[in-house]
């Protein structure tokens, strides 16, 4: 039980995918300018990440390794991730056209969100079992969502500020993300 909690804590705060591992920066910068979009993107990514972490573990354990197809790992994972993203896209389009509109190009881009593939591969690297993989994926996604929402709040405020012209938009976003990342360093060592 304790180790599962630690995995969650570690993935949400200490090894936050965005601010510590610097994965998934593209949607992080792209969709975090509004609360609604950030929350939607967070939820979509949570769905994709959790599912793909679990599925990729299953594929690795029961498909690739028994068949000796380790060299196909990347291709297979990407195939699975793409399929899940496609499914999510179809589902979101049906459930919430507005969210679909808001997420725009970033929704299919979850496929190339390195956080998703990264988490799947990290699971294998760290020799997690199925539950651990699932939690690792879920925790990373929650960490992603947390940072997205936090950052969306900041950017809504930044939008109303007199940021010098040269720093308006992405530059100030990256500087702020850097400071946030600095603050997250405080968590280092929290979980070994």
């Amino acid at each position: 039980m304790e180790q599962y909690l630690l995995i969650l804590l570690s993935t949400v705060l200490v090894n936050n995918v965005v601010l510590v591992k610097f994965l998934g920066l593209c949607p992080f910068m792209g969709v975090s300018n509004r609360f609604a979009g950030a929350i939607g993107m967070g939820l979509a990514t949570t769905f994709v990440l959790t599912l793909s972490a679990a599925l990729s573990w299953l594929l690795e354990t029961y498909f690739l390794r028994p068949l000796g197809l380790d060299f196909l790992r990347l291709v297979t994972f990407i195939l699975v991730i793409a399929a899940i993203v496609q499914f999510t896209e179809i589902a979101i389009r049906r459930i919430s056209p507005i969210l679909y509109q808001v997420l725009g190009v970033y929704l299919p881009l979850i496929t190339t969100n390195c956080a998703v593939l990264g988490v799947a591969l990290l699971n294998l690297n760290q020799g997690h079992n199925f539950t651990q993989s699932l939690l690792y994926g879920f925790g990373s996604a929650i960490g992603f969502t947390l940072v997205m929402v936090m950052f969306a709040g900041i950017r809504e405020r930044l939008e109303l500020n007199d940021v010098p012209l040269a720093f308006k938009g992405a530059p100030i976003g990256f500087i702020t993300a850097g400071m946030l990342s600095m603050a997250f360093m405080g968590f280092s060592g929290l979980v070994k």
Partner: protein
Amino acid sequence: MLIAVGALAALGLLLGVILSMAARFLSVETDPLADELEQMLPNLQCGQCGFVGCRPAAEALSAGETDVTLCPPGGVALAAKLAEKLHVEIDLSQMDHEPLVAFVHEENCIGCTKCILVCPTDCIIGAPKKLHTVIVSACVGGAACLEVCPTDCIEMVPVTVKEESVQSWNWPKPRSPQSTSSELATRSVDR
């Protein structure tokens, strides 16, 4: 080698089947967003946006193919609403081009009533062989009348600014204490 190809093919097939099922059962027939957007548009079918009516414009908006600032009759208010609906950023200063209204040059008007027939809001009054004139407050600036006028006596002109009175006066915006360079820049764009 064969196993690898077979395995990938099998996987691909499986996922393909699942996705096609999903596409089948979760399909979206019409674009519900376009319906909502159409409701928001003025539905004057004036065609100033370059689309043949408000429905195609709504569809283009929903597909993200056109800007929210497309609709002159809707003005800044509509653009702001659309932008909020679609969660896009807009630069309202782009909208600053003045709304135009039709103006009939009376010396050339022959009273053919052609313009009256095409006006979407019936804002031109006149009778056969009589001078026509435009009710400015009802003109959407659709310019449909321009094309049909046989003597080219209709011109689009900016709305003349209403004379300021105590009743129509609004408080001016106070100046910011820190006129930053960025603010100066946006201000010069406004002009």
